[in-house]
């Protein structure tokens, strides 16, 4: 027969065992959510700055992007199956060209969202160190539906890093991988040609 004491002890034990599992995802998601809400908003604010020159803005955005994203990991992912067959020199050249391309192109896209605010709406834990943080980009000047933007955040390094961004359900790295693989497929897997093409595009966006 259960005494009130043993019942209370069992309830306490059950609570102690179950509650961490119930609350763990929410608590564990916090670092990724905090990382996004603190840093991305700051990046948008830098792009909004009216005191910086275009060159200074670009430098600041480059620091912001390279500091918050794992561009090397993203670059390697976007090479798809050609990552395995490319020479180390080509992979290094591609990683560098991809960084330049990403800074130029993302700055162009991010600047379109100047004046908007980011609101974190939740997160999902995909793996122990892999989170998807959902946000809404709200334009105070418009009353329409906010833009749904998600960030994929890894937390297995010294600090969290973004590895992909989704805008209205479209993941940018998946999009870039399809493009690069298609380009390489059309050009006999010539990574050097892809590097030169990316460098040309980066130059066009900077000018």
């Amino acid at each position: 027969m259960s005494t009130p004491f043993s019942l209370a002890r069992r309830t306490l034990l059950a609570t102690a065992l179950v509650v961490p599992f119930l609350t763990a995802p929410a608590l564990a998601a916090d670092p990724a959510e905090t990382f996004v809400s603190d840093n991305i908003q700051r990046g948008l604010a830098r792009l909004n700055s009216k005191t910086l020159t275009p060159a200074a803005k670009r430098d600041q955005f480059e620091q912001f992007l390279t500091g918050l994203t794992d561009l090397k990991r993203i670059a390697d992912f976007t090479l798809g199956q050609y990552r395995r067959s490319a020479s180390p020199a080509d992979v290094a050249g591609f990683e560098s060209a991809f960084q330049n391309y990403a800074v130029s192109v993302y700055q162009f896209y991010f600047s379109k969202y100047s004046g908007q605010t980011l609101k974190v709406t939740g997160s999902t834990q995909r793996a122990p160190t892999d989170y998807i943080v959902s946000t809404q980009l709200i334009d105070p000047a418009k009353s329409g539906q906010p833009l749904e933007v998600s960030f994929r955040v890894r937390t297995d390094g010294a600090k969290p890093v973004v590895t992909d961004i989704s805008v209205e359900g479209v993941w940018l790295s998946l999009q870039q991988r399809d493009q690069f693989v298609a380009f390489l497929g059309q050009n006999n897997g010539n990574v050097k040609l892809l590097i030169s093409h990316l460098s040309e595009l980066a130059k066009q966006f900077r000018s």
Partner: protein
Amino acid sequence: MRGFRALLLGLYGLALAGCASTASPEALAANDPYEPANRNIMVLNQEVDRLVFIHTLERYRALPEFMRTGVHNLLRNLALPTIFVNDLLQAKPGRAGRTVARFVINSSIGVGGLFDPATPIGMLYHGEDFGQTLSVWGAGEGPFVMLPLLGPSNPRDTAGLMVDTFGIDPTNHIHFKQHFWWAAGRQYLNVLDLRSQTFDTLQGIERSSVDYYAALRNLYRQARDNEIRDGVANPAAELPDF
């Protein structure tokens, strides 16, 4: 005019020639066995866009924003009966109810749909079509296809478009004189509105793309998946490892 017709014929010829080409392993991996033909059709679409459409689009975009918003609202309102039927076919009564409420509010207070008083009171717009319904019922998308004039699609969504247009849309069952011109005019405005809404985005993608065709193919697929999931984020397990 003769030159334009020759250009069209030439481009269609190129497209057909592409059908005979062999798809690359990358194209097959991307479920795009007709890639050579699809690429040729995209070139055709771009030429038609450049020669025929872009001039009207420039004039349309020069109109004051409130006028373009009115056209956009009106076209969305006309699409609501089709959306309602697809809401029901997908067994989503809550969304069907919101579609009806939106239609009633915008058709009355919103002066036949020119204004959108439903959005500020929380009756947000959502799209549905028979391609999405087929997907909810379990139909696969099939290979990617680039349709002449209509752009990226697949057999499921193409069949869905036909059912929506000729089967579900009630305005196509109301027969009156000049019905053809009404239907053609509405479709033209639909394309104009869509093109105007996406003009800057598509121009940015084209400018930043290494392969514009592959970019559009991927964009279409991911955006369609998002619509089919009603904007709910991808199940985390479906995303690839980095």
